[in-house]
């Protein structure tokens, strides 16, 4: 039997090129922000859980040692969780279960990345084994270009319509990011600018791709007893689901991805959601590429397979639509990779507690946060609500 769990505070850094500060100073910024936001005494934290991308990307191996002071981890139970792109949502899982199991009442969860200090795409290529897949991986864009191609072929989606829908997502997310003080790229672009941007890996163009961001995110998980004593409204965890898929690219269908579908189904069952499009008020999908966001809209049951293009074009997922996706500007505008999925959770916390400021979607009660890792190999979903 698990206990109810809430998130009682979030802290984010100002992301971007943060080469004016050291890595620990950047992490400390998020940690200070979460204690300021929650009003919790750091001494009351029982357990600290941290994660980032692999050591190869950080330049310092197993950087939780290096960052322990900035994490206020001294004298606490300490754990590291690291699953590549899904790191942030895996961390949220670790935080959730630490409290739900009765192990702790207050857990600090922190994720960070200084992407500008290393070479993200080189690191990503080394995530593939060296015998067969690595030379062809071509960083993340090479692999992620094949998914929309296959999706278009499978459902006979017209290429121009798909291009227009992806460009619409880019325009919408960039416009939303201008309202979010914790977004990295805060500049609007036109449809024409997106559609004429240089091709990275066809059909993905430069403005279909996330930026290189440094940033950190901190979240405090709390038991019901503590959450109810807090000065501000907590966000309650209503459902979680996580699934993995097979490793070798070419063995399984990564478009109608079972791991994404099953992760969402598990989270929906736990939250009692049967009609996600109608019941959810907001979603923060893990969208480093515009095209791939549409695949997840389908995997998560926001619309039928093959219909996301039309739904994006008719505004279903825009800020004013039935289910706004990515009102923060999403991963497309801010991607400190190890922290990115935890930022999705933090943003949904802000939305369901009505504290998202200029990028608040009105009347949000229930929201979905998503993390994605590997070549659509790992998917994690967390549903948060304003009521217990």
């Amino acid at each position: 039997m698990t206990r109810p769990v809430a998130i009682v505070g979030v802290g984010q850094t100002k992301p971007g090129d943060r080469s004016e500060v050291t890595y620990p100073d950047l992490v400390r910024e998020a940690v200070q922000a979460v204690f300021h936001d929650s009003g919790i005494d750091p001494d009351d934290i029982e357990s600290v859980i941290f994660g980032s991308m692999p050591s190869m990307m950080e330049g310092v191996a197993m950087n939780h040692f290096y960052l322990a002071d900035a994490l206020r981890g001294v004298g606490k139970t300490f754990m590291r969780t690291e699953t590549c792109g899904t790191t942030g949502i895996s961390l949220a899982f670790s935080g959730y279960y630490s409290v739900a199991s009765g192990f702790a009442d207050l857990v600090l969860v922190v994720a960070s990345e200084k992407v500008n200090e290393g070479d993200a795409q080189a690191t990503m290529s080394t995530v593939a084994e060296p015998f067969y897949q690595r030379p062809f991986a071509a960083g993340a864009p090479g692999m992620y270009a094949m998914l929309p191609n296959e999706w278009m072929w499978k459902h006979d989606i017209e290429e121009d319509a798909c291009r227009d829908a992806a460009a619409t997502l880019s325009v919408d997310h960039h416009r939303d990011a201008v309202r979010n003080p914790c977004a990295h790229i805060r500049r609007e672009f036109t449809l024409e600018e997106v559609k004429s941007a240089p091709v990275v890996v066809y059909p993905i163009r430069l403005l279909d791709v996330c930026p290189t961001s440094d940033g950190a995110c901190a979240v405090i998980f709390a038991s019901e007893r503590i959450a109810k004593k807090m000065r501000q409204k907590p966000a309650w965890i209503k459902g979680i689901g996580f699934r993995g898929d097979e490793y070798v690219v070419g063995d399984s269908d990564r478009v109608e991805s079972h791991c994404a579908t099953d992760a969402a189904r598990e989270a929906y069952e736990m939250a009692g959601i049967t009609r996600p499009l109608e019941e959810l008020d907001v979603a923060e999908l893990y969208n480093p590429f515009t095209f791939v966001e549409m695949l997840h809209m389908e995997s998560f049951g926001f619309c039928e397979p093959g219909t996301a293009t039309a739904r994006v074009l008719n505004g279903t997922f825009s800020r004013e639509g039935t289910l706004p996706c990515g009102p923060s500007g999403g991963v497309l505008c801010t991607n400190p990779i190890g922290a990115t999925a935890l930022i999705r959770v933090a943003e949904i916390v802000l939305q369901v507690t009505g504290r998202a400021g200029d990028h608040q979607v009105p009347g949000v009660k229930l929201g979905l946060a998503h993390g994605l890792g590997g070549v659509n190999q790992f998917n994690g979903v967390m549903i948060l609500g304003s009521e217990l």
Partner: protein
Amino acid sequence: MLTVNKRGHPILEAEASIPYELAYGPTWHRFFEELKQEKIFGTRCPKCERVLVPARTFCPRCFVDMGQWVQVSNAGTVANWAICNLAFFGAPFKPPFITSLIKLDGADNTFFHLVGGFDLEDVNLVGRIMKRGVRVEAVWERTKKGCIFDIKYFEPL
């Protein structure tokens, strides 16, 4: 050494270069020995009966030992492809290059490799040639090294 980055902030330029010895094990070893003979081998799962290339020690779905080695064709059809215009650190080929998932005849999954043998700088030519379902065949390096590059690329027929 203290230097400055493109934004004028002080940085330490550091590098970690580590040599590795990554074991092939018997399955990769035989696969690459066969590749040197210009043969592409998969293994068949005794339970789900899928033939997976490259050869595996165990079936990722059934978790049973793969028994039978099966030679698949050096030709197949393009199931998916992407043309890459970006160079990555340590990448073995210069852009543009085409990565492709190829359904080799006799295999139940797709095989990851390059498609080439024509002018990839010519966008119109690439558009005309590269379609889902196009037939391709392996082109081999003359000198074999027992690695995945013994196949130079797959060329459209």
